[in-house]
């Protein structure tokens, strides 16, 4: 989906600001509970494992696999009208957290649960760079 027209730019909320700052540096980070070490994403005020509010952001490898997948056929937003049908995935990161994304360089029908993927980054504007994923094998291709 690297040829996407302007996507809706996410509003950078205070709690998600560290995520977007890291993405601009082409680094994927998720929240990590300081008290118990549990990873979580997207940002949440409290750790639902130990209820601690102490949190930092931890870099992750950006490698994972497709946990689930849908193919959107309705263009709910004009930015996606030319792209439909397109796949939306939930990626299970190898460290444990899950993140929603799209898979680039792969036809929607070829994206499958269990597929190995790795992060890649697409700048949307000066404030937001969007983490996307690509099949891991494409690294050498």
């Amino acid at each position: 989906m690297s040829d996407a027209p302007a996507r809706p730019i996410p509003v950078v909320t205070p709690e998600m600001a560290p995520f977007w700052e890291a993405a601009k540096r082409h680094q994927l980070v998720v929240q990590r509970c300081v008290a118990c070490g549990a990873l979580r994403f997207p940002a949440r005020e409290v750790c639902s494992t130990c209820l601690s509010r102490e949190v930092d952001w931890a870099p992750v490898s950006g490698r994972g696999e497709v946990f689930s997948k849908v193919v959107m056929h309705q263009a709910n937003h004009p930015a996606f009208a030319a792209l439909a049908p397109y796949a939306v995935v939930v990626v299970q990161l190898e460290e444990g957290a899950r993140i929603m994304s799209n898979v680039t360089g792969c036809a929607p029908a070829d994206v499958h649960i269990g597929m190995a993927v790795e992060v890649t980054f697409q700048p949307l504007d000066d404030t937001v760079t969007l983490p996307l994923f690509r099949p891991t094998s494409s690294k050498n291709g």
Partner: protein
Amino acid sequence: MGAHPLRGAAAIAGLGITPQGKVYGTNGVGFAVDAVRLALEDAGLEKSDLDGLLVNPGLTWNDQGMGSFQLQQALGLRDLRLTATMNLGGATACAMIHQAVLAIASGMATAVACVFSDAPLKPPAPDGARKSSGAAYGFARGFEAAYGFFGVNAMYALVTSRHMHRFGTTHDQLGAVAVAQRRWAAGNPQAQLHDKPLTLDDYRASRWIVEPFHLFDCCLVSNGGLAVIVTSADRARTLRKPPVYVWGMGQGHMGGDPADSLTSGAVLAKKPAFDMAGIGLADLDVVELYDCYTFTVLVTLEDYGFCAKGEGGPFAAEAHTGPGGKLALNTGGGQLSSFYMWGMTPVSEAIIQLRGEGGARQVAKHDVALVSGNGGVLSTHSNLILSRLPS
């Protein structure tokens, strides 16, 4: 062990269903008023007989917080002893009836109206009046929108994809649910799609909404209102319609990610309800399961034990659930084919069947029914075991 003290203590004495679907001219409160008026007439009660009002406001209600007070004022109800605005999504309908039963059993209230209504459909606009404005996309500001992920259909589709991956559930198995329910809808004149037969080929040919969902995997959208009136068993026997006794009830709310468990709260809600009722699955004559999607029906069948976990697809595909099948399931067409009043759709069809008012779709033996409700994405679950028999 003796019978549970609340088994059969309360009964549903009134049912009000407004016209459903593409009906216009009023809003959520208006449809709610109509539904309560119809339920009172059905029961042979006056509005002054009501001393409890529980309300599940649909998405288009202006007052989500205190909708029950808004409706009390609209109905001109005085001196209520019980009220609440409740929202467990599609699990609210059964949950309102739970609260009504408990209030009646405790003496807090004697006649409780439980109400849902919504008016999401707008009348067709005149030609050329369609508005198009960037402001309409103000919703697309979050993280998920950047990836083109929108709406509840897509949220359920993510869970469904996992079920298909893990258990081998197929599109045709999902389609079997849609086809069976449409066959039931043919006998229900109140069903929005009662005169629209559906074959498996029609299902396969229907457009994708969000894979793995075709159009006919998704429930309808409906304007309308639906109300029931709950009272004590003794009082219900003095009223106009045959009582529908509440034999059992339960709730279950799993928490966590349903894409992991692939399970509804039915696994928690089943035991308290069946224990209270003192019956088992084999005693059920009619089953009305919440069906926001075909997938929800498969999961709920599994979780109540009509088939093993993961075998909801094959169970449906073997055509057990249509008219003439071994399980009378969603006998009015459900929310896929009749109308979408959240959990009130399955509640109302159970009442109709138990009373013997089902007309062309009436199930021959109709003593005991199971009703389920489901909210969020398999997030909340509630149920009722209802019977036309006092004990």
